[in-house]
């Protein structure tokens, strides 16, 4: 009777599947994407430049007005910061889920959820990018048809820092695209 129980126990132990191999490529891609989105968010959020302008001259004393350029003056940049912030949070959560392993699984829905969330993340990040790219292009070149003056000749470092945040965001999008394709390819059809 005891040996039969021991045999049953041994059988149940061998029926437990092996731990799946950790995917280091995907993990390192996510870490890089997290770094890129986080840096894009931070650089754009801390983007600020103050400059003094001489507006008029009364007698011999010039009147100076100091104008500040901040990121939250434009809704496009606000959306950019929010989108990249959410994207970096999502990457952090996905890294955590990858590290913690397959303990979080509900009837095999884990990979499907990861693929769908990755897709949503990619769409959000690319939306933020598109808006900020064209808004900063408008700031750099102005628009003669609508009589909108360019602002980048006066606020040089503001524009340069915004450009750096945009480049980081583009890198993040490429990494996120590769990550999403890899997560979708992990979904194997049930035969």
């Amino acid at each position, binding site marked *: 009777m005891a040996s039969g129980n021991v045999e049953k126990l041994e059988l149940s132990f061998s029926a437990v599947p092996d731990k799946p191999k950790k995917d280091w490529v995907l993990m390192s891609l996510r870490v890089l994407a997290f770094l890129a989105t986080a840096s894009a968010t931070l650089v754009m959020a801390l983007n600020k430049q103050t400059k003094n302008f001489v507006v008029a001259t009364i007698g011999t004393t010039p009147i100076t007005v100091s*104008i500040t*350029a901040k990121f939250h*003056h*434009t*809704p*496009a940049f606000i*959306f950019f910061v929010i989108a990249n912030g959410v994207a970096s949070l999502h990457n952090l959560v996905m890294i955590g889920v990858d590290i913690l392993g397959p303990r979080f699984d509900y009837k095999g829905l884990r990979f*499907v959820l990861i*693929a*769908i969330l990755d*897709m949503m993340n*990619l*769409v959000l990040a*690319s*939306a*933020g*990018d*598109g*808006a*900020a*790219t*064209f*808004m900063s*292009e*408008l*700031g750099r070149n102005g*628009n003669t*048809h*609508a*009589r*909108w*003056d360019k*602002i980048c000749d006066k606020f040089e470092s503001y524009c340069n820092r915004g450009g750096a945040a945009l480049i980081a965001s583009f890198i993040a*999008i490429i990494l996120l*695209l590769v990550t*999403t*394709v890899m997560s*979708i390819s992990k*979904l194997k*059809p*049930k035969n």
Partner: protein
Amino acid sequence: MESITKARKICHLLLRFLAFGATLSAVIVMATSHEKASVLVFQFEAKYTNTPAFKYFVIANSLVTVYGFLVLFLPPESFLWRLAVATDLVFTMLLVSSISAALAIAQVGKKGNSHAAWLPICNSVPKFCNQVTGALVAGAIAMIIYMILLLNSIHRVLDPLILRKC
């Protein structure tokens, strides 16, 4: 069983056709929007080519229209549907970024930007603004349909043989 497969195929085809129609109408409405107005002493014509954002919107939507048209003719059980998932993803991304860019510039045109001393132009050219809004709405509908199609493509890759409602 046969009727469910057929319903599923028809539903999928209908969604793709709707997306094709939405992107096509977005392109047409945006490309035909132009209005002349005279502000003070100078003539002022508002066209979609004035802004690179609207040009990008038209180009991206025309690319997606051509893609949508080609995909309509893909036979339902071919193995190319796996590639279609990846290309669907790329084109959805393109669509989303083009709408977001056009929306950003249109918002500046409508409300202006007091910090940068940019005046809104929609007061002088209201018909142009309305047409651009219409094109953006069509683009937004196309974007939503493409996201639904993406989820559907993942579903098809996951279990191509199990019959479900689309």
